[in-house]
């Protein structure tokens, strides 16, 4: 208990239960495996190594869900010859979470070659996860050869355009965006005019206090444009979200965890369940990073997200499959 006290709020200028020091500390920890919970106006952060000591009540918010990403079913190269095995390990990890997540988000690159049997395999493996509902957005590997037709047939029921949609859970508004279609030579990810118009309209009627979770495959912030790790028209999308007090953006694509806070917007990228990619600029290309077999699961992972009503930011926890 005495250790927890160190993380308690010292200055609460905005009366939102978060002081800058506490928030930055929590965010800094998130990158190395931390768990942040806000309750009763107090922000607490815990190292992942101490999670086993925490009670279920400590860990649970009012809404808990899991993000998985980049399962790349069908990939069979040395970086990971068994992507089905590591996806199964991710499901085991999810089922072991004490927070009992209600549903999953898959932020794309479900398959490696958009083959029907690859999607089938992922569907079969995810059926064993405790949370039954999965909300998908496509990655560029899911829309090969057919402009995303198959993806839409499988996962896009009720969605608009190339597969974008929104839904509400316990007062949180979720928005799934598609930024892997109609890519232009020399460019980055693209949302496009139609989707941006839909987004503006979708959030227009919401109260500014509604927490938003935006999820899409390619990062909606400029992680490393030289490798295509960004979205050309994301600034326009974010402009529509400016008025909201709490926006959490969840992305995949770069096969590593990364965080950034900009005003009321918190950006996260999730690890892949298939293979890691190098840090920006730290290799000749963003191709699969080969690590010794015994280290592979330590660089793959899942992301667990908790929301406590009335609080500012959602608690986002990355944990490896090791």
């Amino acid at each position, binding site marked *: 208990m005495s250790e927890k006290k160190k993380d308690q709020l010292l200055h609460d200028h905005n009366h939102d239960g978060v002081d800058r020091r506490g928030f930055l500390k929590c965010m800094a920890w998130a990158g190395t495996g931390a768990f942040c919970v806000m309750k009763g106006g107090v922000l607490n952060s815990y190292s992942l190594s101490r999670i086993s000591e925490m009670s279920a009540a400590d860990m649970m918010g009012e809404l808990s869900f899991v993000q998985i990403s980049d399962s790349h079913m069908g990939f069979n*190269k*040395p*970086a990971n010859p068994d992507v089905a095995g590591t996806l199964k390990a991710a499901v085991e990890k999810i089922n072991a979470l004490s927070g009992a997540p209600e549903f999953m988000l898959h932020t794309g690159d479900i398959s*490696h*070659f*958009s083959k029907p049997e690859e999607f089938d395999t992922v569907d079969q493996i995810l059926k064993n996860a405790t949370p039954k509902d999965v909300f998908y957005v496509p990655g*560029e*590997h899911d829309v*090969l*050869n057919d402009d995303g037709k198959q993806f839409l047939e499988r996962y896009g029921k009720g969605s608009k355009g190339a597969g974008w949609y929104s839904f509400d859970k316990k007062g949180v508004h979720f928005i799934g965006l598609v930024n892997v279609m109609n*890519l*232009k*030579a*020399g*460019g*980055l990810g693209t949302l496009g005019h139609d989707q941006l118009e839909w987004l503006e309209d979708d959030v227009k009627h919401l109260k500014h206090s509604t927490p938003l979770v935006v999820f899409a495959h390619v990062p909606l912030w400029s992680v490393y*444009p*030289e*490798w*295509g790790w960004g979205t050309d028209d994301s600034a326009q999308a974010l402009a529509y979200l400016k008025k909201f007090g709490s926006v959490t953006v969840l992305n995949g694509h770069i096969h590593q965890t990364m965080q950034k806070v900009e005003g009321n917007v918190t950006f996260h990228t999730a690890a892949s369940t298939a293979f890691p990619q190098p840090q920006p600029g730290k290799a*000749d*290309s*963003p*191709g*699969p990073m080969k690590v010794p077999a015994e280290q592979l699961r330590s660089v793959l992972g899942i992301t667990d997200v908790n929301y406590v009503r009335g609080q500012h930011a959602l608690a986002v926890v990355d944990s490896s499959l090791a």
Partner: protein
Amino acid sequence: MRRSVSIAGLAAALLLGALGFGTGQKSYAASAQEKTSTMEVKIDNFSFGPVTLTVPIGATVTWTNRDDIPHTVVSTDDSKTFKSKVLDTDEKFSFTFSKAGTYPYFCSIHPKMTGKVIVQ
């Protein structure tokens, strides 16, 4: 990053020029054209090499994906003069250029990857 790539492309173009492609050195051009009517572009580390390839009219260009990740070869013009299927590791795509012109292309999965074929 982009600058170094274009310099590599320029160097490749100069090299090809020196070998007699499309530079009016007719004595070399005829025999070289027969020998190398199939020209190669390698896809390595998320880039096309050479970035700019100059070929004679009628040449067939073959792209080979040597990455661990699938790529495509798609011309950027609206009518999509050429468009490969998705190329897995070591898969190839060929296209024969029958008209002079400049043909920019890219990988539609990783659009930062761009290249150019100059046919003259």
